[in-house]
């Protein structure tokens, strides 16, 4: 493998890892809990900026060509963890405004507005994150400490990304496979019924929102420390739609399915459009074509296969043989010693036609 190809491959793999974290994050919110977080990219961005200003050192460094707040050099891996925490903290007031009383379309609108407003603020407040020019020269973690070639470092970063994905998956799986995950899906399917059955709907939604955004923040930190730069152009609100499309294509509500979506949508389709010959389409058009492809994919799947390539998994549970036997015999469970007033014919349901 040539060096150039290896650099390309490692970059794609790190992007894939970041996208996998992204789809898990938004899937927890949109896929599992039904939260329309159209401000998702904001939380990835909060993580990216946090990690940047925690590692860049004072803003007077490098002849002070960029202006930003904080400016410290915190050792690895703290910036990654703090980035997640900060994204989580920002989720609380935003969630309070958007999730507590608003639902579905109103919620989506508020999120979208928050995302746009945040981009405008960061672009125009020069001293916060260096305005529209954004931050650059963000150091790669442990690069000077490791004494390895740039290429080896890239492979090590791929490994590190994989480890982060693995650890995050453990926590994601703990939630989605648990009764809490079931409560999240119940809230998604019917909020009023979930609440009437004793679920604290707002808490469940806030949990999914905060937990998902912590992961989004970490994904941003992971990405920014690899590519070394971050500016408002990187997180315009439509970027959320790429991740949302990846989830819809891969399989809403399926942690494995969305990985496939992360591979197909941001990686394969976005990369494929790169290879459109420039004689056929000028470079400026290629960028637009990417958006057409993303939008077209989302529409096509929502029309023809809304459940995605790998649909949400049907959860089955072990059946004790005694119940199977009782069901076959049409008997009540043994400890049930009431009269037979209400014993229904087993055939009732079998004979019932679809209504």
């Amino acid at each position, binding site marked *: 493998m040539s060096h150039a190809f290896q650099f390309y491959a490692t970059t794609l793999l790190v992007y894939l890892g970041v996208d996998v974290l992204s789809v898990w994050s938004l899937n927890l919110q949109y896929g599992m809990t039904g939260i329309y977080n159209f401000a998702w990219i904001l939380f990835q961005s909060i993580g990216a900026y946090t990690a940047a200003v925690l590692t860049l050192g004072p803003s007077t460094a490098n002849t002070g060509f960029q202006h930003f707040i904080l400016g410290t050099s915190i050792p690895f891996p703290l910036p990654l963890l703090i980035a997640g925490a900060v994204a989580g903290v920002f989720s609380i007031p935003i969630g309070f405004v958007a999730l507590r009383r608003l639902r579905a379309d109103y919620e989506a609108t508020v999120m979208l507005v928050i995302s746009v407003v945040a981009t405008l603020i960061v672009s125009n407040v020069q001293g916060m994150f260096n305005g529209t020019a954004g931050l650059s020269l963000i150091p790669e973690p442990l690069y000077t400490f490791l004494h390895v070639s740039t290429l080896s470092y890239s492979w090590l970063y791929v490994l590190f990304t994989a480890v982060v994905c693995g650890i995050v998956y453990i926590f994601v799986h703990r939630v989605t496979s648990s009764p809490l995950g*079931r409560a999240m899906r*119940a809230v998604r399917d019917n909020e009023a019924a979930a609440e*009437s059955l004793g679920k604290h709907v707002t808490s469940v939604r806030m949990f999914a929102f905060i937990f998902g955004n912590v992961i989004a923040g970490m994904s941003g930190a992971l990405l920014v420390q690899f590519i070394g730069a971050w500016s408002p152009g990187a997180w315009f609100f439509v970027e959320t739609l790429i991740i949302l499309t990846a989830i819809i294509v891969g399989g809403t509500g399926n942690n494995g399915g969305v990985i496939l979506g992360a591979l197909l949508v941001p990686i394969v389709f976005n990369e494929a459009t790169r290879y459109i010959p420039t004689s056929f389409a000028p470079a400026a058009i290629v960028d637009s074509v990417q958006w057409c492809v993303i939008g077209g994919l989302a529409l096509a799947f929502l029309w023809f296969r809304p459940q995605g390539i790998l649909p949400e998994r049907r959860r089955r549970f072990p059946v004790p043989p005694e119940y199977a036997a009782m069901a076959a015999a049409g008997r*009540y469970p043994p400890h049930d010693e009431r009269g037979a007033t209400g014993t229904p*014919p087993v055939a009732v*349901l079998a004979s*019932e036609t679809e209504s």
Partner: protein
Amino acid sequence: MTVSTLHDAPAATTGAVVPLLSVRNLRREFGGVVAVDDASFDVLPGTITSLIGPNGAGKSTAVGIIGGGIRPTKGTVQFAGEDLTGLPPYARAERGLIRTFQLSSQFSKLTVLENLLAAAPHQRGEQFRVLVFGKRLWREEQDRLLERAYELLVRFSMFEMRDEYAGNLSGGQKRLVEIMRALMANPKMVLLDEPMAGVNPTLARAIEGYLLDLAAEGVTLLLVEHELDVVERLSDNVVVMAQGRTIATGSMAELRENEEVVRAYLEG
């Protein structure tokens, strides 16, 4: 409190039995429309009480207020000696007061079995601690819930349907899921808003049987129902509402003799 209705305090007259649910002077306006005007009634423990009345009488609004989904403009809801008036629905569910809905409200993309498991309140596995403890937190609890869910599935002849998505069930089967789900919570009282609406007659009779069984086990039921012969077969007590007010209470036989009821409902 204005004692405007003949049934205002039946517990006081019978003396011994304390009502499980006590609704007093409920009022609810939607814009200029008064859905519930002045509704007061009691439900005694272990009984089946039916709420009847013509369309627009305020029955569903009353059930909504008791369940906590709708806030009353005025009035109080007492349950098991506690004033629930300001409490949200989940807090009422935790106290053993569960409601079902007029329109099927299943969790469509959960299986029937999952619908039941999700319905039990107070689950350890639903606490945010699962992030730290994982399966250790909820494995045993889940086994217990599974056992109860399987019992209900066998009892309601829905065992074979356990792995089907609830959204794919027939209308009648969805009603059964709704009733089973209410029972997963080990409720003291279940509010059933037209549990037999849109269900074929055979299954409707089966549901009647299930409801009688539940009452025999000590679960108190408050039923909103249109079919008067069903009401007659099931109810220990019937509350009649018309134009937002409770106008009478008693057995069906008594109510048939009541002129006001006959005018407002039985003939109208």
